[in-house]
């Protein structure tokens, strides 16, 4: 079992959703994914921790979410709890440069490195711990 990223676990759950990580860069890519009918094939990777960006994906059955900022108290954290959609927030890579997100002080290279490392990977989310959510590589 290789843990490739970790972050704050929004809520404890025995659910272990798996799928290909799909980075959603803008609202158009969210709409395109929903319209493709393949929403449930993917673990969604987003930069922010706000709710609206992923709103239709959550209502239409997203199976798992990874964010690069935010906390369980953020609106996306609250809503993923309500939907019982496992969610790892402010994920960082377990390898790589060791960069960590600090609000207002983190440049784009931090996010680009995470997208590069996770996008397209087949993973499962392990959200059984009270505090730490894990992104586990399946292949």
């Amino acid at each position, binding site marked *: 079992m290789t843990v490739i990223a970790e972050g704050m676990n*929004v*809520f*404890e*759950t025995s659910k272990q959703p798996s799928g290909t990580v799909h980075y959603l*860069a*803008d*609202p*158009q890519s*969210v*709409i395109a994914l*929903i319209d493709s009918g393949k929403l449930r094939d993917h673990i969604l990777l*987003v*930069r*922010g*921790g*706000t*709710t*609206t*960006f992923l*709103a*239709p994906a*959550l*209502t*239409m059955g997203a199976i798992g979410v990874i964010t*690069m*900022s*935010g*906390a*369980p*108290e*953020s*609106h*996306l954290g*609250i*809503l993923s*709890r*309500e*939907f*019982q959609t496992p969610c790892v927030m*402010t994920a960082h890579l377990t390898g790589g440069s060791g960069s960590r*997100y600090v*609000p*207002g*002080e983190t440049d784009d290279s931090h996010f680009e490195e995470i997208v590069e490392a996770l996008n397209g990977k087949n993973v499962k989310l392990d959200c059984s711990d*009270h505090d730490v959510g894990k992104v586990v590589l399946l292949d």
Partner: protein
Amino acid sequence: MTIAETATSEYAKRYEPGDDGLRFQPLEYVGNFKDMEPVPDGILGDKIMRSRAKSGVLEKVTHEEVLNDQFSLDELNDLNNYLAWNIWDVLVMRATEGVSGMIPRQEYEILAFMNEFYRYPEFMRMVTDQIGAQGVIDIGESARSEIGTKINCVHDWCLGAVAFGMGRCGLLAGEWIRADDYVEESNIILKFMQRVLWGKRQDGYILNSQDRYRCKIHEPALIDQLMGQVQNFDPGSPDQHTFEQFNATAELLAFFDHYDCRLGLGDTGPYPLPDGRILIVRDLFVNEEVFHWSDVCEGLPHCYTLAVVLDPELMGLKEIRVNDISTSFTIPKNYVPHLTGGAVFVRDKWDTPMSDVYSVPLNELEPHMEKLRDSTYRMYKKTAKMSRHTLCLNGIYSYYIEMILPHLRKAGMYEEVCAKRDFWEIDQRVMNYYYEITKRNFVQVVVPQKIFSGEGYLPFSDEADLRASKYLWA
């Protein structure tokens, strides 16, 4: 009677006088107390902050004190310091959420905060002049016997914590005002907030954090009425799944219709039930008619109210907080699998009489959910086409208009404030700040560092004049 006098589960230990509560996050608050020990979140944080007050304004206050029009300088500073901690307590972790990718929320938030500080005093004075101090208290009291009302924790808290606290803090951070400016206006805002909150709670406190994060404001008769419609279910059952999905789906649109902010939802409670379970009463406002973008919500009611029944024993509940922005958090964090009962009520319009509020059985919720999902997707596609400027302006409205709208409506003065005070206009200074706030990383750095960290809430100095005003009173 449906409400129990006392609760017996572990979470109930949090209500014992000597208990300091649990920590929900690892950070600590400093604020204006730089030479003192940092303050944690939660019940212990409340105790420490109140122990540092110079006046009695943070303890239970009397009707007579609330009717008094003027705070002393110590009272203003105590409220400023406590609100700064309270804001940090409820928002410091949320503030790590970064960019939205959809709505420029950090930008519209700071602009709305400052616009409220500049503009609310004239509305608040106008309302108070017309209905009197007792009338303002009565606005708060009305929430005790209603569901689906936006006279609730978050809106009432915003009157002071946002319009005074964050608005003044933002203006200080931008060096647009000085600490001893606008003292008279600050008093007007905080008095209005105190009166509404005091009238709602009726226990002498104004904030949930002062009462170990409880907001048990509803009258027993109303709780009885709600519980009379609750359908019990087993964890994992289809009924529980339906209720859980309805709650989440409506809550999401409630956030979205209010531009990704918490004004769309309102929890009260926890109300301990005689069988040991807990009731949370949750309003989800999915169609605010005053906003033009709510056209996609046509056919949905103003509010769905959920009676959410939770089994604390099943959950091993150690602490539950209904915080001052109307959101419930628990330890353990995941309360949803432990819901064992629920009911859904509909209030069609904001002024629908309580006698016309009706319940929807769980097996009839699917068409409502379908409409909620459809509205959410239509809202998304509509919003995705908007420019940054339009989104910012809409966002300002979703705070500045929304936070005082329920109180103006209840006073019967919304139309009058629109007509006589140009309610929907933005102060010209704030429109100018629109072009300033993205410079020097003001939004991305200063806002989280000053506002959500509690660092920028400068006190009024000993030389401050309670009469100091920069207003051009009409």
